[in-house]
């Protein structure tokens, strides 16, 4: 098989495997040094998000709130702040959640990342968009936001790729949005 592109490997594997705030900074630093700067975005996109909000397959799923005022918004809606760079279907509408895949699917260990602003605490968070793979996908809660998305030439910030790698099936089902850490320290 083709040899693994080093930069891509560091970015993808790195982000996928580590989740503490501190390590995110170091990865971030590493990437900046490596001239693969993440777009750091001061303002989350907000309600004008989901271009597919009238998607006929969206179905009516109940709103899902964190209950934490610092993490506001309905996780089944395209304008929830963590979805600022998502392109796909929301796992919250398929029996999964903001952090978990629906039953019978498999979460890809390799992922793409975005940077979204939390409207509550005004911080920029690095979000890992992990695709869930091998299940039924029929476009429910389709959501296309592209803040921070970049052409596929830089894969780790592109949301058009099916990020199902290292999974039994590479067939796309839906996407979760995990907080990896804060992008910039505010002081």
């Amino acid at each position: 098989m083709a040899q693994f592109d080093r930069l891509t490997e560091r970015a993808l594997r790195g982000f996928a495997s580590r989740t503490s705030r501190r390590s995110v900074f170091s990865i971030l630093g590493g990437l900046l040094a490596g001239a693969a700067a993440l777009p750091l975005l001061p303002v989350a996109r907000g309600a004008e998000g989901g271009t597919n909000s009238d998607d006929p397959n969206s179905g009516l799923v109940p709103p899902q709130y964190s209950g934490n005022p610092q993490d506001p918004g309905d996780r089944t809606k395209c304008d929830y702040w963590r979805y600022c760079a998502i392109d796909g279907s929301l796992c919250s509408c398929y029996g999964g959640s903001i952090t978990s895949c629906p039953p019978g699917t498999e979460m890809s260990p390799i992922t793409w990342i975005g940077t979204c602003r939390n409207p509550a605490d005004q911080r920029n968070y690095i979000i890992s968009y992990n695709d869930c793979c091998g299940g039924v996908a029929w476009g429910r809660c389709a959501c296309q936001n592209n803040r921070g998305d970049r052409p596929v030439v830089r894969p780790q910030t592109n949301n058009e790729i099916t990020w199902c790698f290292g999974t039994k099936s590479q067939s796309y089902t839906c996407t979760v949005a995990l907080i990896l850490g804060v992008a910039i320290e505010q002081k």
Partner: protein
Amino acid sequence: MTMSIIFRATPILIGATLAALAARASEFPTPLPADTGHKVETLPAKYPTSWAFLNYASDRIELRNVGGDTRDVKAQLQGHDSATLLVADKRPEIYVADTVWSRGVRGTRTDFITIYDAQTMNVADEIVLPGGKRGLMTAMEGMFAFTDDQRLALVFDFTPASSVTVVDLVKRRVLGDIDIPGCSLVFPTGVRGFSTLCSSGTMLTVRLDEKGAAAGRSESKAFNPLDTDPLFTSSALVGGVRYFPSLHGRVQPIDMRADDVKVLPDWPLVSAAEQSARWRPSGWQVIAGDEKLLYVLMQANAEEGTHKDPANEVWVFNPATKARLRRMRLVRPGSSVALSHGPAPLLLVQAGDRLDVYDPQYGNLIRSLELSRWNSGRMVIEPVH
């Protein structure tokens, strides 16, 4: 370095933002923690009886909570062509009979039963069905059935010659097939056997041996007048007796408990007056039952060709007394009806792109779930036991 990148990215917005930061930072001194322990959801070993499987005939199956206002989707199972479902309560397994081609709509055909682990919804195993003869049609009752206390599954084959493939779900292998010339669909009979509806108007019953081979056959007298008033193939089972409504409003009870079926006297669902007002059963899954009562989708001013149209009312009958207990007006015309199981059953009615949940006692609408669009518009509702 970092800031310089910010400025390169979106110069205009920074000023405003930094101001905002100062303003809000104090409220939430610590950032949200990183998400750890992200995982794949699993389901309880025993599903609540307020859940139901919705078979969007015939390419997707959804497990949905119909008993709570959260209305949440619990899981999906994929179907391809004429996918039909069996949910075991003897084993934590779900079975989907399905058909695929190696290149989607072309290539090598494979008929198969997927065995899902009911808790993880992972594929536990699959059983390939031989002969490429599984019946392909809009998903309906009678295409896939248990017998022998859920040890065996029966798959209706149509090529257009009719047969039944017998599968051992415990050993997970095919045992054989049984010809049923001129007959259609399978309904469990007795301890280990099945019955099928024949184009001569009779019911053919086949008793099976341990190995799933035909141990005996018996054909009932003709009771299904196909020319004048045929029975729907949708039925409700109450106390071991299966009730088939007819297109013009009779109901035909058949006792399925013994090795040979007993064809019981039919009786009318409609009075003479209602008949002249052309009240008839109508829809897809047109009848449901609980431990005691029958619930039938009914439509006024029916005419030739409207027998699959959505119905305006649900009529509730007591088969013991043959009396109608009440009429329920539906908030919107419905095509498929079912009753959830458990202590407080719910009446589920698929009405176009909605699943309406009624109180079967008082007929009031409790809640309405929006469904995903699908082409056939036909649904088979299978509430969890």
